């Protein structure tokens, strides 16, 4: 059995920092109590390390990597309930349940996340306006606290610990297992439609009209060519196809980025060319088509290590949400600042959230419009740009997604999460992260 080993090999998806951490990789549940007890003052459970910033890092502290604990405890296709270790990936889960005509009700943009991570970040997907967040579908979970207690929790919990754990960034204890409701679907295929648009107004009109007719909606925009509210984008929407094909995705992606791209590879010109090509390619294929769920939900999972495109300095991801009444103005302002900076993103994503109440005290989704982009890490220059974006989000009464963040200020965080005080009361005194040490009240 392995205990904690000091290493700097575990990085978050953005790869901006490479901290030294004491990492344990247990494979059986009976190893956990001793690891939690022996972890010292600062412990954090982590999964597949797809959070971008520092919410999944614990420099100089202890980290339990849960991916070796990936067993399904119980799966009943008839009642559509599945309970599994927190380290089970959605990748593996989907391959197991899809042949039974079932699917997770909510999936994020990558299937390489664990159940524990899906709970801890209360992830959302393209169907937020119909199905809310992942936490809306959690039936039970087991939480190990540093005082030696193991607590089973569900939506009926009255102490607030369940609501704190959903979206709680792993700070309320170690999530040991999770039980979720699955959802019946006809098959693996999606009836998808791509509609080019030319302005933010058009985007909002498409979003409004699609809420009632389409389960999944998401948009890509070309953030290198912005003129007021005029911009080029592709609105994608879809519904499960009435097609009995239940073939899951392939176990391993075929393509990979083998090495870090050099610094000069991503510049204004190549970003602009990429966005141009993406737009033209999308326009060519505009209209309706039937596609497999893998490229529809998880387009980037087809390329392993795609984060290496941003080079060895890594990247920052920025994802904010702004309330509906100011969505148009705030989004236009954000895009104006980004376009003027000349920094930009390969894939800028725009989406509206529905009015589902999120179940977690720190859940990110709220009604409004969310914008997500990545920026190559160019040091102070990038941080200044992000700070300018912060000012707009703050003014709009919006907030940032901790799973994507590695730099927001405590003030930015505290102003975005009104239930933070209630959350803080449930934080396990011996759990922490780099993110939490920066933003905690």
């Amino acid at each position: 059995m392995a205990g904690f080993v000091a290493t700097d090999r575990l990085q978050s998806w953005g790869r901006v920092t490479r901290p030294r951490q004491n990492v344990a990789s247990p494979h059986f549940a009976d190893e956990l109590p001793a690891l939690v007890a022996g972890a010292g003052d600062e412990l954090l459970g982590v999964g597949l390390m797809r959070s971008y910033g520092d919410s999944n890092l614990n420099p100089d502290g202890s980290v339990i990597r849960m991916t070796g604990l990936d067993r399904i405890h119980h799966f009943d296709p008839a009642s559509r309930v599945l309970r599994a270790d927190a380290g089970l990936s959605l990748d593996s889960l989907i391959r197991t349940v899809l042949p039974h005509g079932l699917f997770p009700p909510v999936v994020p943009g990558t299937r390489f996340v664990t159940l524990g991570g899906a709970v801890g970040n209360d992830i959302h997907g393209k169907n937020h306006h119909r199905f809310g967040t992942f936490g809306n579908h959690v039936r039970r979970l087991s939480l190990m606290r540093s005082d030696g207690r193991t607590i089973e929790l569900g939506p009926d919990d009255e102490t607030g610990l369940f609501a704190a754990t959903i979206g709680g960034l792993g700070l309320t204890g170690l999530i040991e297992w999770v039980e979720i409701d699955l959802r019946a679907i006809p098959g693996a295929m999606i009836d998808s439609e791509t509609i080019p648009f030319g302005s933010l107004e058009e985007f909002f009109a498409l979003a409004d009209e699609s809420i009632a007719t389409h389960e999944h909606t998401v948009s890509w925009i070309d953030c290198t060519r912005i003129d007021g509210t005029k911009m080029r984008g592709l609105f994608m929407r879809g519904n499960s196809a009435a097609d009995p094909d239940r073939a899951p995705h392939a176990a391993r992606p075929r393509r990979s980025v083998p090495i870090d791209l050099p610094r000069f590879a991503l510049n204004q010109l190549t970003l602009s060319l990429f966005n141009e090509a993406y737009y033209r390619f999308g326009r060519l294929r505009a209209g309706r088509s039937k596609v497999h769920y893998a490229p529809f939900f998880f387009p980037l999972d087809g390329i392993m290590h795609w984060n290496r495109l941003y080079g060895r300095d890594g990247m920052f991801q920025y994802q904010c949400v702004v309330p509906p009444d100011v969505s148009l103005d705030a989004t236009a302002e954000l895009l104006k600042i980004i376009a003027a900076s000349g920094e930009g993103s390969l894939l800028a994503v725009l989406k509206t959230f529905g009015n589902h109440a999120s179940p977690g005290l720190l859940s990110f989704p709220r009604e409004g419009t969310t914008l997500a982009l990545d920026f190559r890490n160019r040091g102070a220059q990038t941080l200044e740009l992000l700070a300018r974006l912060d000012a707009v989000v703050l003014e709009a009464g919006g907030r940032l997604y901790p799973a994507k963040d590695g730099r927001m200020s405590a003030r930015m965080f505290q102003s975005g999460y009104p239930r933070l005080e209630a959350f803080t009361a449930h934080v396990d005194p011996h759990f922490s992260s780099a993110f939490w040490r920066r933003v905690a009240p």
Partner: protein
Amino acid sequence: MTDRKPLRVLILGATSAIAEATARLYAAEGASIALAARDGTRLAAIAADLTARGASAVPVLARDLAAMDGLEAAFDAIVAELGGIDHVLLFYGVLGEQKDAERDLAAARAILDVDFTSAALWSLAAAKRLEAQGSGALVVVGSVAGDRGRQSNYVYGAAKAGLATLVQGIAHRFALTGRKGLHAVVVKPGFVDTPMTDGLKKGGPLWASPDQVAAVIRKAAAGSGPIVYAPWFWRFILLIIRLVPAPIFHKTKL
């Protein structure tokens, strides 16, 4: 899933990471999988998981596999519980501490008993059964450490070398029966990222995941030559290592 009868598989050393990854491949095919290892609680967790992933039945045998008394009776009993046998896969082993084995003969014997003597007896029990029925596969996980005696782990290496030679002999014996569906193979993984190797510095192109090695093992069980390296490139690395003349090899710390 097809309408063929599910495969019946016995996995010896079922709590190892490579064994579990292999068992999941069989589970996805709908096989019946008997699991044998020492820790009953861990076996139960793995059995529940394999059932959820599609295995038809998952009987378990909680037993110290290095215990040689009553070994053949235990083999027969678990095969009876499985309702017959198609594939026997042997995964268990201990790396041990070479330095301890040099100082303390009891430590050396423990390594040899686990990695060679008991493993050889399970292999012979399986061979007897498979030959009698005229079909089936015996897959034994060896190690590239058995290909050349090296100062850093030659007790473990010798045990794995002996086991490989035994399985090679069984493969020869099976071949002489002329039965097409009867074969034995030793699979030799290189560096695999498992709890067994947690003491080593990992990463780089030579390291494989348990899933990658499991895919090689599953393929070998379906039919192959008597010796398979996992991944394949280790065959050439070991060829070179075997060919290095002793005067040069002895200057290294390998």
